[in-house]
């Protein structure tokens, strides 16, 4: 199995404010998600499985309180990052498929629009962002280069500034060239796409919007005539295009479209051939055209690319990279020095948070100075942002705020509790039996909150120390080249525009991929025109449009019937393999889990009660709740009475003291009602939280229904293999 951790959830605790009190939905769960695996979370409704997944996606309801824990993705704690940062992760990196496909689609917007909307919006946002990133980075680089190479030499500094400006200038030329090329190239690909359809439809004798579409294709074909797209056959293309109109009117009169189809096919062939040509290196071409004062040499594209590359390297790039590397080293060293300072400063000024009673003004002042110190320690030239340091300030502020709000709240709660008790006792004295109870005061632990603050600071110190330790292993050469690549990428991001047609082509391709027949027709339909299974496919297509890393499926097949269910499951499995996705699969159907999961976590009352590979859970289950789940569902050979789990899950406003499952558990022991069981390790991959695994506990075998089923399934498998 792949051991690259994609997501790790640690000690996550979430509760909800309701009018009756605080509902503890998730009570400290831990799990890791590895790359390319499916983790199934199984449990009844109300066990907190959906809440967990919503927390990962940052879409918890307004009345939720995240009491503690962390969700680490890509080095960031998803519980602490800002909403703006979350926008870049949600949908892009972590996508979700919801239970009810009807309510997750907009009923009054066509499917096509819903599929392309995000693509177009993201494209626009990316353009703006790329421009900003490019300018910022180049500015920073220039500054650092000046500092590193010419600390006291104004002339040298000027020279460097000039160089950076040079970079900027030929970058503009590069963008112009690339834009021109992109426009033509895109026109060609659009024309090819549409012509293919048109020819196909004509062969099927359908003539919808024929006049408009032919004119449109003519326009597109002429647009695609450009030096590097359609060059040599431009004349041929022009003559062909000019014959289309006459051919069209001729065909219309005779009602025989073969002539028109021939011409269109020829046009299409020219264009599709043009699409296969190599793209010239516009970056170096931009430099050559701006500074060499010469025409481009007459060569084919490959030779030209090599020539331009060499010219650029000789005249500018090699030297620039060398200087750039100096700048990066300089900036890194500066930041290491600052980091060391920051560590000592933090360590010295931490006492403010360790006092018995914290002073608010002092804390805020300390927070300000600490954040400033930490911010100075950040190496701004680093391409991979040190998210931990960046989020330190806001994280610390949240913790401090939590402490001070808790003080006020605790006071209020005690007051209310006292008032209620007095009232209750008075009623009791009068001999009445009040029909309400005094809700116990919800006092938050101030020591814990204080510890959280200190822990935050300590963790940053450790993080910085680690960074300093690894400073020798950095490869500055690679970083310098990565920087140039980054700048180039951002620059081309400015000119890559996602047009509606491009988005449409991509959407139709995606719809084909998820198995929707006639995607072109379906593209224009509304969600109500789709059946349940098709709707769920659309939802999956939308989720996969952005190529996410992690896919969360929240009961994606519960609303569907068996055949559609297995189709959807196959689809998800297929995509998982093809794109190496990590999937979190939430369900209460164990049959589905057996099909999908690599590992399974069984949740009950906000806790994970058993955790293991799917073989562990299905063949060697150890927790009574897992047993109950497995034996309460009938399979094809069950004849005896079902082992239903008696009762309902506990009220999570007043969670039980001991094991939450004890009351419905027929194997419950005395200790189950008194103390919560810890996680017992059974094998390296298999853990379960039940006192039955304690060495002193009596040995209990799993129920007969389960052992029988395992035996039966083994026989059935044997039969299948024999066949």
């Amino acid at each position, binding site marked *: 199995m792949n051991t690259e951790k994609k997501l790790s959830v640690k000690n996550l605790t979430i509760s909800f404010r309701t009018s009756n009190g605080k509902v503890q939905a998730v009570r400290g769960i831990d799990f890791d998600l590895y790359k390319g695996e499916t983790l199934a979370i199984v449990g009844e409704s109300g066990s907190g499985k959906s809440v967990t997944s919503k927390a990962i996606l940052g879409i918890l309801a307004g009345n939720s309180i995240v009491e503690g824990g962390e969700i680490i993705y890509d080095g960031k704690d998803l519980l602490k990052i800002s909403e703006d940062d979350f926008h870049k992760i949600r949908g892009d990196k972590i996508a979700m498929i919801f239970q009810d496909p009807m309510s997750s689609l907009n009923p009054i917007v066509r499917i096509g629009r819903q599929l392309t909307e995000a693509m177009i919006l993201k494209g626009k946002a990316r353009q703006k962002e790329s421009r900003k990133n490019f300018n910022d980075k180049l500015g920073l680089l220039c500054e650092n280069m000046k500092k590193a190479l010419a600390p006291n030499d104004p002339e040298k500094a000027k020279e460097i500034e000039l160089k950076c400006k040079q970079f900027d200038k030929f970058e503009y030329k590069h963008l112009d060239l690339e834009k021109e090329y992109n426009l033509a190239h895109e026109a060609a690909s659009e024309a090819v796409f549409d012509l293919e359809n048109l020819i196909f439809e004509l062969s099927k004798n359908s003539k919808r919007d024929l006049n408009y579409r032919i004119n449109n294709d003519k326009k597109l074909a002429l647009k695609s005539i450009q030096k590097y797209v359609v060059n040599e056959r431009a004349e041929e293309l022009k003559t062909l295009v000019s014959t289309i109109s006459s051919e069209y009117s001729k065909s219309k009169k005779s009602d025989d479209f073969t002539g028109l189809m021939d011409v269109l096919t020829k046009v299409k062939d020219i264009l599709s051939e043009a699409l296969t040509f190599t793209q010239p290196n516009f970056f170096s071409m931009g430099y050559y055209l701006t500074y060499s004062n010469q025409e481009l040499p007459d060569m084919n594209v490959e030779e030209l690319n090599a020539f331009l590359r060499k010219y650029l390297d000789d005249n500018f790039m090699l030297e620039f990279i060398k200087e750039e590397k100096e700048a990066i080293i300089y900036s890194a060293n500066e930041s290491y020095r600052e980091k060391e300072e920051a560590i000592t400063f933090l360590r010295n000024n931490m006492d403010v948070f360790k006092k018995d009673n914290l002073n608010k003004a002092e804390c805020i002042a300390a927070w300000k100075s600490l954040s400033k110190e930490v911010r100075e320690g950040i190496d701004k030239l680093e391409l991979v942002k040190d998210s931990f340091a960046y989020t330190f300030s806001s994280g610390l502020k949240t913790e401090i705020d939590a402490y001070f709000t808790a003080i006020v709240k605790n006071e209020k709660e005690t007051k209310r509790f006292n008032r209620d008790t007095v009232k209750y006792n008075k009623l009791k004295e009068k001999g009445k039996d009040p029909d309400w109870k005094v809700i116990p005061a919800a006092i938050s632990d101030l020591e814990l909150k204080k510890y959280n603050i200190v822990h935050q600071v300590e963790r940053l110190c450790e993080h910085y120390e680690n960074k300093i330790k690894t400073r020798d292993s950095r490869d500055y050469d690679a970083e310098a080249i990565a920087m140039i690549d980054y700048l180039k990428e951002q620059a081309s991001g400015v000119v890559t525009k996602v047009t509606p047609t491009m988005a449409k082509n991509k959407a139709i391709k995606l719809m084909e991929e998820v198995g929707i027949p006639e995607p072109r027709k379906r593209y224009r339909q509304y969600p109500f025109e789709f059946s349940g299974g098709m709707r769920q496919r659309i939802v999956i297509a939308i989720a996969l449009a952005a190529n996410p890393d992690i896919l969360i499926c929240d009961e994606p097949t519960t609303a569907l019937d*068996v055949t559609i269910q297995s189709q959807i499951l196959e689809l998800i499995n297929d995509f998982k393999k093809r794109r190496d996705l990590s999937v979190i699969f939430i369900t209460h159907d164990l049959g589905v889990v*057996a099909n999908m999961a690599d590992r399974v976590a069984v949740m009950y009352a906000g806790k994970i009660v058993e955790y293991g590979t799917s073989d562990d859970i299905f063949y060697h289950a150890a927790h009574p709740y897992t047993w*109950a789940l497995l034996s309460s569902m*009938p399979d094809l050979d069950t004849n005896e009475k079902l082992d239903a789990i008696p009762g309902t899950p506990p009220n999570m406003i007043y969670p039980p003291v001991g094991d939450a499952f004890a009351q419905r558990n027929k194997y419950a022991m005395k200790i189950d009602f008194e103390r919560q069981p810890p996680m017992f390790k059974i094998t390296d991959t298999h853990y379960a939280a039940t006192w039955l695994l304690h060495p002193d506990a009596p040995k209990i075998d799993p129920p007969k229904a389960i052992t029988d089923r395992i035996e039966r399934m083994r026989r059935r498998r044997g039969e299948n293999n024999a066949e």
Partner: protein
Amino acid sequence: MPNNDEVLLRVEHLCQYFKMGGAELKAVDDVSFDIKKGEVFGLVGESGCGKTTTGRSIIKIYDITSGDIYFKGIRIGAGIRSYKNNKANARKEYKEKIAQETDPSKKKALSDELKAYIKEQNNQIKAAKYDQKNCDKEYQQKSVAEVKEKYLPLIEKASADEKNAINKEYSNELRKARKTKLVTQIQMIFQDPIASLDPRMTVRETISEGLVIQGEKNKKVIDEKVYEMLELVGLVREHAARYPHEFSGGQRQRIGVARSIIMNPDLIIADEPVSALDVSIQAQVINLLNDLREKFGLTIMFIAHDLSVVKYFSNRIGVMYFGKMVELATSDELFKNPLHPYTKSLLSAIPLPDPEYEKQRKRIVYNPLESHDYSVSKPRMQEITPGHFVYCNDEEFEKYKTELK
């Protein structure tokens, strides 16, 4: 397994079409089956195949388009489309015949024949319309007559003191008898326990509503009955005063069950009663239905798409596909020897809680255009082995027969 062969419900050529703009949607198309007393009849198929529509047509939520429904031998539902079609076809047929005929006397004879046929069909239509509307009327008259028979001699015999009391009882019973309906002996349990309970009615009101409509006025009797039902389905008396939102999903479904069995039904149509519930609660509700069935000898028509549950619960299973019944057999037989390709594909899609098995499981894809060639001979329901019906044409019939051997 019930050993008597008394047929409780018989459905013949049931068609239910819905108007959709100009076109017609054939939700249920020519479905026939019968349910024997005391058995559980399962109806499976993918969503949109017409299972629920069949159930709803039986309790007369919809007016059926064509076909007959017999309950305890009495026709409770009848459609007229088939007779109308017969009429039109006959007219066409005879018109051609008459046109070909040259002899005027024979022409006359033919047109008389046609007239007689149309008259007969018209009578059928009348009868069907009458039954559709008045099926309960005769039943009411019968029960009224029974009550009269029982009480009238009593009243004559009774002394002056007792007369008042008996008279009161008599009028009470008579009122109830006048309001009885045959169709109330068929009750339905709905899929969604949240949507099928009125949020503004207490549990007592919900459960007793049927009784009240039937003319029960004595509050004590009603309360006693409600408590009895609540205890029967595993709830407690105190729950009667509560509202549906105070219950969990499983408890709500129990209320739905209580509401349907308070009418003392003979047949319960359970429309996906466990699909909306959690696994652990599912088992509770299934066990409850099983207990009730044993206790009252209920007959249940069980509509579901979860095949494992249907297999566990039903004696016989009908498989539906796009409004047609494609296979009908006892549950063991169906799962052991599925014949129709759609049934095979359905069975191959069931996920089972066993990872090793799941890795091997291969789904069979059903494509009606590839699997069948109905261009020459038309398919119909045919009995392959006793009790095992498959929708097939003659050619496939032979194929299936050899397959079974």
